[in-house]
C-alpha cells in the first residue's frame, strides 16, 4: 500500500547504494519518471494542461503550414474585420492583418521566450545554487547577499532597468526576464543542497574520496531536480506573461512582430470597436499560462513524497 512512498524512498536508498558502488544510475532516474507519469495521469487537470501545451507547441511549429496568411501582411482597407469573416476566421487587426495567422506565429515567440528564459535562469540559478550550497562559507555569504539584492527589487522594475540599459527588443527582453528569474532557482537549489550535503551517503562519498565535482554532478544535482522541475514548469507561464507584459509596454518584441503581448497592446486601443483584437491574444496567453500552472501543480503533487492520495 505504501508503494508510492517506497518508490520515492527508493531514490535515496538507491543513491546511497550508488554512492557506494558508483553504479546503478539509470534505473533510479527511470523510476522517478515512471512515478511521475503514474501519478500525473490520474490528475485530469494536469493532463489537460499537458495536452493543450503539446497542441500549442505543435501548432507553433507548423505555423508556416497552418497560418492562412502572412502574419505581417498589412491591408488598410480590411481593418478590424470581425470574427468569422470569410478568409479571416478570427478577423483582422487595426492594420488589416489576419489575427489567426498572427496568433499562430505569435505562439512561437511566446513559447520560445518562456522556455528559453526559464532554461537560462534555471541553468544559471542551478549552477550558483549548487556551488554556494556545497561550498558555503564566504562564497555563499557574498553570492547570496547579491541574490538577496536581486530579489529585493520588484521584478518588473529590475526588468525595466535591464531593458532600459540594453535598449528595447525581444532578445533583450528575454535576457531581462531570465536574469530576473535567476534568484528563484538559486534559492531552491541551494536549499536542497544544504539539506542534502549533510546526509550520510554524501558523507560516505566524501569518505570514499570522491572528488567534489563528482559529488555535485552525480549526487547533489540529480537529487535537487524534483523541486526544480516543478518550479520551472510553473515559471514558464510566469515568464511568458512577463515577456508579454514587457512587449505590452513597448519594451519587448518590436512591431510588426506577431507576438501575443504586442497583439494585446495594439488591440486594446480598439477594445470597443473590435474587442476580439485584444481578447484573442489575451485568451491565448491565459490558456497557455493556465495549462502550465495545471501541469506544474500536477507535477508538484506527483513529486511530493509526503503527499498520499
Amino acid at each position, binding site marked *: 500500500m505504501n508503494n508510492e512512498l517506497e518508490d520515492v524512498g527508493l531514490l535515496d536508498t538507491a543513491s546511497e547504494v550508488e554512492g557506494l558502488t558508483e553504479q546503478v544510475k539509470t534505473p533510479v532516474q527511470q523510476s522517478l519518471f515512471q512515478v511521475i507519469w503514474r501519478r500525473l495521469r490520474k490528475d485530469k487537470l494536469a493532463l489537460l494542461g499537458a495536452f493543450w501545451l503539446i497542441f500549442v507547441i505543435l501548432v507553433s511549429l507548423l505555423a508556416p503550414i497552418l497560418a492562412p496568411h502572412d502574419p*505581417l*501582411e*498589412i491591408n*488598410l*482597407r480590411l*481593418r*478590424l474585420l470581425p470574427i468569422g469573416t470569410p478568409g479571416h476566421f478570427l478577423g483582422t487587426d*487595426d*492594420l*488589416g492583418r489576419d489575427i489567426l495567422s498572427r496568433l499562430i506565429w505569435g505562439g512561437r515567440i511566446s513559447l520560445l521566450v518562456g522556455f528559453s528564459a526559464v532554461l537560462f535562469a534555471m541553468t544559471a540559478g542551478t549552477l550558483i545554487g549548487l556551488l554556494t550550497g556545497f561550498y558555503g562559507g564566504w562564497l555563499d555569504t557574498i553570492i547570496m547577499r547579491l541574490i538577496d539584492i536581486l530579489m529585493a527589487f520588484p521584478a518588473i522594475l529590475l526588468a525595466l532597468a535591464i531593458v532600459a540599459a540594453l*535598449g*528595447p*527588443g525581444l532578445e533583450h527582453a528575454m535576457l531581462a526576464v531570465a536574469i530576473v528569474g535567476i534568484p528563484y532557482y538559486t534559492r531552491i537549489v541551494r536549499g536542497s543542497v544544504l539539506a542534502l550535503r549533510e546526509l550520510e551517503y554524501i558523507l560516505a562519498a566524501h569518505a570514499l574520496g570522491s572528488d567534489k565535482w563528482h559529488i555535485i554532478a552525480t549526487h547533489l544535482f540529480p537529487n535537487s531536480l524534483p523541486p526544480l522541475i516543478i518550479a520551472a514548469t510553473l515559471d514558464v507561464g510566469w515568464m511568458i506573461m512577463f515577456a508579454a507584459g514587457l512587449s505590452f509596454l*513597448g519594451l519587448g518584441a*518590436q*512591431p*510588426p512582430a506577431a507576438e501575443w503581448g504586442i497583439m494585446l497592446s*495594439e488591440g*486594446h*486601443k*480598439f*477594445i*470597443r*470597436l473590435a474587442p476580439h483584437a485584444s481578447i484573442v491574444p489575451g485568451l491565448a496567453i491565459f490558456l497557455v499560462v493556465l495549462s502550465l500552472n495545471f501541469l506544474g501543480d500536477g507535477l508538484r503533487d506527483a513529486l511530493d513524497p509526503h503527499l498520499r492520495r
Partner: protein
Amino acid sequence: MKLRNWSWLAILVMLGLVVAACSSTAASEGGSTIVVGLQAEPVTLDAQQMSDYNSTRAGRNIFDALLHFKDESTDVEPALAESWDISPDGRVYTFHLRQGVKFHDGTDFNADAVVFSYERQIDPNHPYHDTGEFAYADFTFSMVDKIEKVDDFTVRISLKEPFAPFLANMAMHSATIVSPTAVEKYGRDFSKNPVGTGPFKFVSWTPGVEIVLEKNPDYWGGAPSVDKVIYRPIIDDQARLNELEAGSVDFIVNIPPDDLARLKADTRFTTVEQPGMHTWYVVFNCQKAPFDDVRVRQAVNYAIDRQAIIEGILQNTGTLANSPLPPVLWSYTFDVQSYEFNQEKAKQLLAEAGYPDGLSINFWVPTSGSGMQQPVAMGQAIQADLKKVGVDAKIETFEWGTYLDKTIVEDAQTLPEIFQMSWVGDNGDPDNFLYILLSGDQYPPNGFNLGHCKDDAVDKILREARTTLDQAKRTELYVQAQKMLVEDAFWVPIDHETQIVVMKNSIKNFKLHPTGDFRFRDVLVEP
C-alpha cells in the same frame, strides 16, 4: 480565506463609501468647473519653459504676453501692450504697456517685469537665468539686440536686423510675462508655482493626479465665467475616452480616430474641430548613407501610400501633406512636385541610386507623443510599404521622453536612417516651420532640423525671407523655398492633423486655437 456574511457586508459598505468619495470629486461639484483630460502630465507650468502641448494647454491660461493671438487665428492683437510703434527701418519696437494690471500675487505689472521676463531667458549672467531651461529663447529672441525700460510703462526692444516674425513671436508662450517677485521667491520651483497676469490663477499641482486653476476675478480683460479648470493627465487614449463617457471628465484630447464617429453621433457631447497648424513627417538622416542621396529620399517618398494611412489608420482626421508647410499658413502652395504613390518609380530611383536589390535601414518610432497621432500603427504601415520596394526598415520603439532625448541631438551619427516627428506651429509664421525645421542654421541645439539636412540655396532664401518685412515678397520667397524643399525631399510629409476635442455639450463657446492652446476665458458652462 473565508469571509463571514457580515464581512461581505462591511466590504460592500466600504466600497460604497469609496464610490461616494470619488463621485464627490467628480466633474459636477459646486460652481462651474471644467475637468480636462490631457494626454500626459505637463512638464512645467512656467510658460517661458514650455515646449509641449500638455504644458501649454494647462499653463498658458495663467499668463499673458505683450501681444495676444486673436481667437482662431495667428493675427496679433494688443494684450499687456496696449499699442506699439515700429521704427521705419524695422529695427526698433516700442511697446506701450497696459496700466493698472496686477500679477496674481498682488504685485504690479510694469516695464521692469517685461525686462525681467526677457532678460531672464536670454542673458546667461542674469541672476535668475538658472531658474529654468528656456528651449524657445533662441528662436524667440535671437534677433534681439537690447531690451530697455524707457519709463514704468514703456519698453523699447532693438533688433540686430529687421525681423519679420518679431511681433508674432511676442505673442508666443516664450514671450509671456512672469511675476519677478514670484521668480525671486520660488527660484527653480517657479515652474510648480507659476504667477502671471492671465485669466486663470494657479491653485495646486498634484503630480500624476491633477492641476487646478481658478478664475482671476480681477482679470484686465474681464473675469472668466468658469470658476475652475482642472487638468488631469490620462495617458491611455481609451481610458480617457471612458472617463468622458462615464462623466468624470468634461473635455478630452486625442480621441482615437476609430471612436470619433460614435462620439459625434452621441448627443451628450460636442465635437470641435479645426484644421491644424501641424505636419506629421518622417525625417531622413542626411548625414548617413543611403539618405545622403536625394534619389533614395525621393524613392521613399514615392513608395509610401499616404492616402491609405490617412483613410485607414487616421480615419480622415488629417489631410494629405504635400509640403512641409500646412495649408492653413499663408504662403502655402500646391504648386510643388507631387510624390504620388508609385512603387515602380520608387524601385527605379533606388536602382539608379545603386540599390537595385534594396537595402536595410533602422526606423525609430515613439510609442506616443503630442502631435504624433498613431505613431506605431503608422510606422508599421510605412514599414510594410517600404518592404514592397525592397527597403527593409527595422522598427525600434521608444517612450516619448526618451525618444525626444535621442532624436534632438548634435551628432547625426547617433541617429537611425529614418525616424518620425511632428511639429505644431507656434506663431503662424512660415519661418516657424521652414527655417526652424529645415534650415542648415538650425541643426540641434540651435533649432529642430533633426535630420541635419541642408540646401545652401534654400538657406539663403529662408534667411532673406525672415529679414524681409514686405509680406508679398516674403510669400514669394516661401513659395520658392517650398518648391525646392519638396524636391530636396528632406522629409516624407505624411499628413496635417485636424485638431479635434470632444466635450460635454454643457460647455459652450469653446474655440480651438491654431497653436493648440486651450482658451477657457470666454467659455461658459451651462448648468
